[in-house]
């Protein structure tokens, strides 16, 4: 298991910046995820870690050792490709055994380790099949077993679940997390699915146009997005535009019809700035919470029963907010409703037009 470091890693394809000055430290045994919209450079960044692509600038280090120009076959990373990349001419057993064969592991040991790997991913007994005879979920497990068997120093997973149906996706991600925790292997995961990222990761890096915009634990990123882009990419809820008035470190935001107090999580807001105000629907409550809060009085525009909660569009002073209220609470359209949101959950960010 190793610590992976990226220092100023940059990769361009013509005019496209696939990785822009990426500097990161991924700790030994950590489950680290690159999250971002499609085309933002996640795969490219991962491929550079795997040695399948080489940076134009910057360096990559495993436990302090410079591997920037080391070919893939000398890095001992185990990468699961988005399309699995199983070899169609080899049976499952041979697919899994491949990495051991090129390492010249002797026969008895090889068989034992392949069997263990297949067991680990619950594919015992399917070694004699060809990949084409397996379901998507099974193929994905073979791909995983194939890299786990070589005890890679880093496990690299590029959107490993994107080709599976929704239910299997949840099942598999739990399994992957389970295996990772059991083996304590440094794992780098790539996905564009924020829920998936939140569910499995120790830390998440948000990438956009090749550049890492924020790194943090899932809850940090969710609760304190540092940019409008991140706030809009992750989680639900309206992002409102307003003007900040800062006094004593607490910004007050004039949202047109009303004003709220919030936190400046990026410490980047000045007096009179154009700002974005992020209020998550689930941060609202019906009763006043025992902490500094904003009180908002509005009229119900639209209401929909989701199950665990009721989703309400609330018009406050001409602005529409998305608010979750307890399911038992009746919210007739046209009725008035008062909600509260803690100040620490009202995020104020510098306004940037989201592309």
């Amino acid at each position: 298991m190793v610590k992976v470091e990226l220092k100023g890693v940059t990769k361009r394809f013509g005019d496209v910046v696939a990785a822009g000055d990426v500097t990161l430290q991924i700790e030994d045994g950590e489950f680290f995820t690159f999250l971002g919209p499609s085309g933002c450079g996640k795969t490219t960044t991962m491929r550079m870690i795997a040695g399948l692509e080489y940076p134009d600038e910057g360096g990559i280090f495993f436990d302090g050792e410079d591997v920037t120009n080391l070919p893939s076959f000398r890095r001992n990373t185990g990468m699961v490709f988005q399309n699995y990349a199983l070899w169609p001419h080899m049976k499952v057993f041979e697919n899994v055994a491949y990495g051991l064969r090129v390492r010249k592991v002797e026969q008895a040991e090889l068989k034992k380790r392949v069997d263990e790997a297949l067991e680990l991913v619950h594919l015992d007994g399917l070694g004699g099949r060809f990949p084409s005879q397996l379901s998507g979920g099974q193929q994905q497990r073979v791909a995983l077993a194939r890299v786990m068997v070589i005890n890679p120093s880093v496990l690299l997973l590029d959107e490993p679940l994107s080709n599976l149906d929704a239910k299997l996706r949840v099942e598999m991600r739990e399994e992957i997390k389970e295996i990772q925790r059991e083996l304590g292997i440094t794992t780098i995961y790539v996905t564009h699915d924020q829920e998936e990222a939140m569910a499995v990761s120790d830390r998440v890096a948000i990438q956009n146009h090749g550049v890492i915009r924020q790194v943090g634990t899932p809850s940090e990123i969710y609760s304190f997005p540092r940019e409008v882009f991140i706030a809009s990419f992750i989680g639900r809820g309206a992002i409102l535009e307003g003007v900040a008035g800062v006094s004593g470190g607490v910004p007050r935001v004039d949202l047109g019809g009303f004003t709220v107090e919030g936190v400046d999580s990026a410490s980047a807001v000045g007096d009179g700035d154009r700002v974005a105000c992020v209020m998550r629907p689930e941060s609202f409550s019906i009763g006043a919470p025992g902490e500094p809060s904003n009180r908002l009085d509005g009229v119900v525009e639209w209401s929909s029963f989701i199950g665990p909660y009721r989703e309400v569009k609330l018009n406050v002073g001409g602005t529409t907010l998305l608010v979750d209220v307890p399911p038992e609470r009746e919210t007739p359209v046209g009725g008035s409703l008062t909600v509260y949101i803690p100040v620490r959950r009202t995020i104020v960010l510098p306004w940037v037009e989201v592309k």
Partner: protein
Amino acid sequence: MDLKKTIGTLKRELDAMTAIQTFIAYAFLLVFLIAPLVLMVGQAFVYQGGASFRWFTDLLSSPEYVSFTSRGGRLFEVRRGVMYLWGHDYGILLNSLIVAFFVTVFCSIIGVVAAMLMGRYRFPGKSLFRVLLLIPLLATPFVNAYIVGKLFNPRGGLINYLLVDLLHVLPWRLDIDGLVGVILAQTLSYYPIIFLNVLASLNSIDPSVEEMAENLGARGLRLFRTVTFPLFLPGLAAGAVIVFIFSLEDLGAPIGFTGARANPLSRKLVSYQVYSSFAEALTGSFSPKIAALAVIILFIAVAGFLIIRRYVNLRTYAMLSKGGRWSPRLRTPSVKTQVAIILSLIFLVTLASMPQIGTVILATSNWAISGTLPTKATGQYLGTLVSDPDVTRAIVNSLLYSGAAVVITVLVGSSIAYVVARRDIPGRALLDILATIPVAVPGIALAVGYFLLFSSKMFRGSILDPLLDPALLMILAYSIRRLPFTTRAVSAGLAQVDKSLEESSMNLGANRPTTFFKIVLPLIIGHILGGAILSFVYSMSEVSTSVTLGALREDRVPITFFISQIVYGVAAVGSVSIGAALCVLLMAVQITAMAISNFILKQKVAFLGV
């Protein structure tokens, strides 16, 4: 910084295996393709020790080569009950261009019509016609033209007998000979090239495009002209340029016609002139004027090829695109139209397969001497394939040369395909072009280049010296000329192997050679074998270098040289029927290869007639 980056990339991309592959490919192409041609071009520009256009101005100003008035010949002339269709002699160079032009036009018309019928209509017997239309691709070098000449002979030719004496549908006998005869023989052999290319284009047209046009009110001819035609034009252009080049370099028809009719007009072609000058080359010298002639057709062919290649991607030229999706554009026309379609296809298939049918008849009967129709079947000619030591030796020679050529072609071709498809090295695009260009290089020009280079002082007395032993040179010539077949087949295979299959192998610890042999090779072996088979078949029936370089030593002659001698009538061995028997052997090899390709390797590879 940029230089450092380039060097860094180069160091990574140019691992030992890629370096070896690239080096071998370039070295091979340089020595056996570029150097001979460059030397030939050089020679053509030398006059009395100095650089000069003399040979070219000589050629272009001499009426023997370029004449704007007819120097003889007959066209649509009726004399004493015979309509003469020979064509006019406008000089050797113009003749070649005129013939190639008409062959291309006729092949395009036939090819497009056949492809439209096969690609757009449903009618009974269609799958049978699909096979029958490809019969002309079966190689019957020299003998095909001989048979066309024999059939259209005003004295006792079968066609004249049928149309004039039996059915009385024609008021005069037809005498098709000379340049018109060459045009006819070449058209019949080459139209499938255009047919296949256009059909592949038609099948790959998204049917909704045509349907959309119909919705907007375009029908019939208008639909064809505005939508369908532009969409298959790339396929047509690709096929047409190849037909043009093949016609330009063809020796089969001029020699075959000479054998049948001895009309000198059919020999007034560039390819034949270059060929015949090899007789004097035996003495070790070669006329620069002939080299200049070869340079001219080399230039025309390569320029035409490169221009068309820019316009359409010629990658698919040898391949019937994968399987051909069953197009829902198929229409079932009225019964009357169906009958008309079937009748016209029967007419086309019968006419176009005459050479192949005739070859089989010639080889198995006494038709060569019996006159209009054969009167007796005999196995005697086929028997000579094993009993006559000269014939057997030619067969063994061809098998050996072709086998050896295939080994070289596969090694070089696979390397090129792999480097071009997978490695990011400078000169990759050039390698791609060089591996394709032999399609466009007239074999006769390559033969001249080989002769000039390898009989020069530098190679005199070496194993490459054709005056000493042309065998090795023929092997190399075959492997260069058939290189595009293998390269294209392997490229097609590699295109189906996702890059990630290799990357995952390297990620798991396998270096590039291991990855190549354990992952890539098993996945493309079918394509490699398919390309190898194709190269083998077309090496067996290779004409241009075989009849020129092959002539240089009697015990080294390959099959096609042997056939040319028999058909031309200069061989002591006797009947043209033995030539036909050899062609039957070639056809058998080809059919077997096609069957192996299609049914065992499951490769849909169309066979070009080369």
